[in-house]
Every structure is written in structure tokens, then in C-alpha cells.
């Protein structure tokens, strides 16, 4: 119950806030005036909006995400295309990476998509199954300038589903080993690139290098680690090298419980917990040991990270080499983004011209040859002098080429996200403790994945 004084205060304040006014109707003339002015302004605005400087052109929208440098380059490419193709105008729609997938999918589902969209391959199989992409096969067949042999077969493989082409690869690349040459020299170790040339760069050697490059402080705390145990999907590289795999070739079953997969995961688990040459998850938290900080001897990463290291690393020398080999060879993982044409675009021919432009020799020379970003999809550009010979790190550009030549596309299906969630849980159960029952965890996860793959998609 409020006191009468409180009530009085409320009443007074209410009157102060809402003083008695003249009847609303007396204000109408000013309302009319305001409405008239608003309408006038709107009319002016609409007149201004109505002028379309590209009315005589076919208008296309291209949507992509990326860091500011990448987006600036793509904007430049769009402008080049517009200059060279006066009958078409491409406008570039930039979307922040964090919102990209959601926005893209909602635009596809609501039939408001851009005509050409860059799709990360992680999402490609999931979206191609939903029939959002234009089948480019006939466009490619009718185009006399298109030859699939111009491109690395892995690029074509990644963008082809059931023999039909649904995209063209860009920002392609593979995983290789980035290594700190200064740390190597300090540890008195031979350059791993040289070892790889001699066929001696093995996972055992890699482990030995990681142990020798690791340094601890007087209090026993790690100062520098030799390597960082890779997570999914990069850990597929040692899994393949040990003869294991993530999936069966028909993608219907998991192979996580395979003895060779278990061996590879055990090997990776031993790096932090037994050999202490890699940070365990808690030690690696908050970016405590990153390659660019100079506290990590070797790191697995995509080729696209090179420009970042080139920009950030100032205090030590670095370079790249192919991934180590194991009892079953040394195959790396390759992956790109796909340029897709929206299935319901009104201008598939023009969209195809834009896609061809973005994957042309000229564009790739500019993007990859001149600026050394990622990896060209075209063999001619990858083998060109401009790409292979550079005066800045990394110098072993042939490692990029050999990685892609022998690379294997990511074995993913439309259910990759669901599968990855299950695998990530298993890896957390393994990697976060020193003595997990690895075979039991992997076999249990294999059963879960098989059950999930056996069920109808979408539940």
C-alpha cells in the first residue's frame, strides 16, 4: 500500500509529465502541414531513387564474405568485369562472415538470393542437395573456351555432384606445414623441406622435430612448443597416412573405429600428453601458442593463411613444406570455395560469364600470381614463373603445387555439420584428458555416426 504522500507525488509528477493540452483536433492543421511536407519529401526521394544508371544493362548481384583485403580484391574484380562487359553490371554484396551462412540459406530459401554466390565447401554438399544451385554442366558444355583439363582435377571433383557441375572453385588450397626456420636452426635440425625432397619427412620425424623444438622455462612451464596437434578436419591427414579414414568410400558408414584411425588418433593424443611437444587444449586456450607469435615450431594450415603470416611475422624466418608421410603415404587435404549460380536466377548466361571471369587466367594471375593468395585452380597459373618464384616467404611455392597435385578433397556429405558435432565431442573426450580409452570412444562415436547416417536426413 502506498502512502498518501507517495500518491500525491505520483499525481504531481504525472501532471508535470503530461500537462493538459488543447484538444487534438485543433492541432490538425499543423498535422496536415507536416503530412504535406513529408509527402513532398517522399516524392522528391522517390524521383531520385527512380533514376537507374544501369537500366540498359543486365544487373547481377554477387555475394561473398571475407577479410577487408579479400573483399577489396573482389570489388576490384567486379569493377574490372563491369568495365570489360558493358552490357552487364555486377554489384557486390558483402556479408560479415559470422552471419554469412544464415543469410545465404535464408536468401536461398526465400528466393531472394544473389545471382552468383560464393559458398564455402563445408556447406556446399548440404546446399547442393537442397537444389539451390544452377546446374552449370550445360553452360560449360556450350562454352567453347571452357576446358575442365585447364583446372586441377581436385577442383573439378569438389564442385561436381553425380557427374553434374554445380560450381566453380575459387580460393582453393591445401593444408601444408608452416615451420619456424629460426626455431629449427636453434634446435640444430635439418630443414623439413629438404627432408621431404629426399622422401624422409615422416610422421616419426615430425614427432622427433616437435620434441626437439619444445622449450620449457626454469619453472617447468612451456615457453615454446614444437607443434600443435591438429583437430578435425586437419587430423584427417595423419589418419590417412596411418591407413585410416573418416568414412567408407560410399559415404554410408563411419570408419572412426578402424584400427588405423585409432592408431593415428593415439599418435596425435601422445603429442601433448606423452611427448609434451604440443599444447594440450587448456594450454592452447586463448591463443597462447600461435605460429605468428613465434611460440610454435610447426603448424598445419591452409595456404590461404600465408598473406597473414607474411604481414604479421617480423621476428623470425619461416617457410612451408609438404605434410609428413606415414605407412600409407603422405596425402594432404584440399578444399576451396565454390562460385555457384542461384538456380532461379533470371540471367544464367550472364552469371556464367561472371563466374568464368572470376576463374579466368587473368583474374587468377592477379589474385594468386601477383598477390600470392591461396592457390590457383588453373594449372597454367600454378606452374607459371610468377607464381612459383617469389622473393618473399614462403619460398617453397612448389610445396603448394605438390600438395594440391597429390591432395584429396574433404570427404564430406550433406550431413557434415551433424557428423562434425559428433566427432568434435569424441575428440574433446579424448584430447582433454591424459588417459582416455581411445578405442572405446571412437567405436562408440562410429556407432552414433552410423545410426545418424542410417536415418532419413532432416529429423
Amino acid at each position, binding site marked *: 500500500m502506498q502512502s498518501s504522500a507517495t500518491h500525491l507525488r505520483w499525481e504531481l509528477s504525472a501532471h508535470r509529465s503530461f500537462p493538459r493540452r488543447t484538444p487534438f483536433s485543433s492541432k490538425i492543421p499543423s498535422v496536415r502541414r507536416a503530412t504535406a511536407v513529408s509527402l513532398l519529401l517522399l516524392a522528391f526521394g522517390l524521383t531520385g531513387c527512380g533514376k537507374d544508371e544501369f537500366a540498359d544493362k543486365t544487373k547481377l548481384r554477387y555475394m561473398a564474405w571475407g577479410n577487408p583485403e579479400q573483399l577489396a580484391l573482389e570489388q576490384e574484380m567486379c569493377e574490372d568485369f563491369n568495365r570489360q562487359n558493358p552490357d552487364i553490371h555486377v554489384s557486390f554484396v558483402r556479408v560479415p562472415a559470422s552471419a554469412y551462412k544464415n543469410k545465404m540459406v535464408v536468401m536461398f530459401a526465400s528466393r531472394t538470393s544473389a545471382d552468383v554466390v560464393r559458398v564455402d565447401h563445408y556447406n556446399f554438399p548440404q546446399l547442393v542437395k537442397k537444389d539451390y544451385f544452377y546446374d552449370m554442366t550445360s553452360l560449360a558444355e556450350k562454352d567453347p573456351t571452357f576446358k575442365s583439363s585447364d583446372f586441377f582435377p581436385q577442383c573439378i571433383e569438389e564442385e561436381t555432384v553425380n557427374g553434374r557441375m554445380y560450381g566453380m572453385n575459387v580460393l582453393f588450397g591445401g593444408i601444408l606445414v608452416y615451420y619456424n626456420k629460426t626455431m629449427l636452426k636453434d634446435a640444430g635440425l635439418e630443414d623439413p623441406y629438404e627432408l621431404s625432397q629426399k622422401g624422409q619427412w615422416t610422421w616419426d620425424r615430425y614427432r622427433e622435430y616437435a620434441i626437439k623444438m619444445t622449450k620449457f622455462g626454469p619453472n617447468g612451464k612451456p615457453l615454446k612448443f614444437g607443434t600443435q596437434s591438429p583437430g578435425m578436419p586437419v587430423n584427417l591427414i595423419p589418419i590417412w597416412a596411418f591407413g585410416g579414414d573418416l568414412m567408407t568410400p560410399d559415404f554410408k558408414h563411419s570408419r572412426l573405429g578402424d584400427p588405423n584411425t585409432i592408431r593415428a588418433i593415439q599418435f596425435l593424443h601422445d603429442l601433448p600428453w606423452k611427448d609434451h611437444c604440443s599444447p594440450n587444449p587448456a594450454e592452447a586456450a586463448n591463443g597462447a601458442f600461435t605460429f605468428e607469435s613465434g611460440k610454435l615450431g610447426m603448424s598445419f594450415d591452409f595456404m590461404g593463411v600465408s598473406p597473414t603470416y607474411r604481414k604479421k611475422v617480423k621476428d623470425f624466418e619461416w617457410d612451408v613444406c609438404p605434410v609428413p608421410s606415414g605407412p600409407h603415404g603422405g596425402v594432404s587435404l584440399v578444399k576451396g570455395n565454390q562460385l555457384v549460380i542461384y538456380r532461379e536466377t533470371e540471367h544464367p548466361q550472364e552469371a556464367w560469364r561472371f563466374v568464368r571471369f572470376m576463374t579466368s587466367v587473368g583474374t587468377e594471375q592477379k589474385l594468386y600470381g601477383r598477390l600470392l593468395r591461396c592457390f590457383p585452380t588453373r594449372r597454367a597459373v600454378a606452374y607459371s614463373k610468377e607464381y612459383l618464384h617469389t622473393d618473399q616467404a614462403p619460398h617453397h611455392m612448389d610445396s603448394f603445387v605438390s600438395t594440391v597435385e597429390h591432395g584429396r578433397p574433404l570427404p564430406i556429405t550433406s550431413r557434415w555439420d551433424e557428423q562434425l*558435432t559428433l566427432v568434435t565431442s569424441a575428440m574433446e573426450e579424448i584430447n*582433454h584428458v591424459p588417459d582416455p580409452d581411445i578405442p572405446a570412444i571412437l567405436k562408440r562415436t562410429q556407432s552414433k555416426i552410423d545410426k545418424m547416417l542410417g536415418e532419413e536426413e532432416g529429423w
Partner: protein
Amino acid sequence: MVATKKPAFWGFLFITPWLIGFLLFTLGPMISSLYLSLTKYDLHSKRFVGMENYRRLAFEDPLFWQSLRVTVTYALFAVPLGIAGSLLIAVLLNQQVRGQRVFRTLFYLPSLVPTVASALVWSWMFNKDSGILNSALGLFGIPPVGWLFDQKVTLWSFVLMSLWGVGGGRMVIFLAGLQGIPEGYAEAARLDGAGPWKTFRHITLPLLSPVIFFNLILGIIGSFQVFTQAYVMTNGGPNNASLFYALYLFRNAFEYFKIGKASAMAWVLFVILLGLTLVQFKGAKKWVYYEAGS
């Protein structure tokens, strides 16, 4: 007749933007999601399946139960702790001491930090090697705790982190409630020989019970909607130890595009919260005192 209708007309006209917004962005999506929860919909093809999504959630999805377990456990601890913490701070900040306004500002400040930013700060504080929490524990010879990496501990780390918000809006509501209690009651109690604890227990708490009730309802609803900090700090890990309900719902909707299932989860959440709120209202009759009703 026209004169009496006119104010109503203008009233409705003025709330039209809100009405349109409510119909388009609240009621419309709610009805739509209720329908979608009865379909198998992946943003491409849609099929009416009746209650199948609900049946599958209940009987075939262990992660649904895991996410519910995580969220209920969190709510059971974070809500009472949060309410007690906010009340304690509000009582302290209600004391007539020098610098009272400065203290109020300082305690309120953390709640102004965006959740993503505070999650990042906390992930540093939880760092096993260099985090401030483990450094403090180290002073007492306690070995480092894997706050975000040990699946037995992770959920409790989130409960601990929830205390970050005790000085926020809830504390302000308590403070307003405390200031609304007439001083005369406490004074009469003191004259009757009641000490500070008895005064607090028998005067302040009962008079504050409507505010506690209000904060309890909002706290429970809020604890079932925990998402950002789990998404940023652990993404539900390790091994689903911090898989909050809202995070699992988000995954189904926006990572797996299981829109039917996610909609069913949203309605299950709605029913749970509605049920809990109704139970609280029923129970409130026994412990919430409204002056007007007494």
C-alpha cells in the same frame, strides 16, 4: 457517439505500429513455428508429420535430454545464487554510506558489458595456466582447475560466471524495492527489540517478496535462454557438458536446418517455462505478501 469513439480511434492509431510489429514479428512467427513444429522442414521441402518431432525429441534424441539436464542444473544453482547475490548487493548499496552512488555505479558497470565481451574476458579468467582464478587458487596451494576443459567442472564455471550479472538490472529492482519499504516498519521492529537479522528476516524479506518473486520468474526464464556465453566460450563442449538448451535449438535450426525439430524444441521450452511460471504463481500465494491484499 462520435465524440466518445474518437479517443479510442486515435488510441488505436497510435498503437498501430506496435500492433503491426507484434502481429508480424511475435504472434505471426509463434503461430508459424507451432505449425512448423508439426512438419519435417529443412528450408527446402516441407511435410506434415503431426507430433513426430515431439516423439523423436522425447524418445530418440539423447542430446535433447542432455541439453535439458544442463539447463535445468544451471537454473537450479544460478537462479537462487544470482537472486541471493543481487539482494545482498542491493542491501549493501542501500546503506547510507559515503560514496554510495559511486558504489552503485561500480556494481552496475559489469552488466553494461556486452555478453560476448564478458564471455571473452571470462574465458581468459578461466584459463588453466594464466587465468586469474587459478592464480588465486594457487596462493592457497590448490592445483589448477580446468574450468572450461574438464567436463565435470565446465557447467559450474558457467554458474560461477552467472554471478557477473548480480549487480545488474535485478539488483536495481531490488534496490528500488528496498527503497519502497517504509522506514517505519523497521523502526517499530527495532523498538520491539529486533536485531538487524530479525528485522531483515521478518520485515524486509516479506515486504520484498513480490520483488523476489518477479526476479525469480525472470531469472528462471533467463536461465533457460542461456546461449551467447556457451556459444562463444565452449560451443557446448567439452563433450556436450555445456550444451545449453538454446544452443542445441540454434544448432538444429541454423546449422542442421532441422526447422521442424527446432520449432518443436522452442514450443517445448515455451511449455516448460509456462508450466514453471504457473507453478510459481500457485506457490507464490504461500510466500509472497502483497500489502494491498494483507
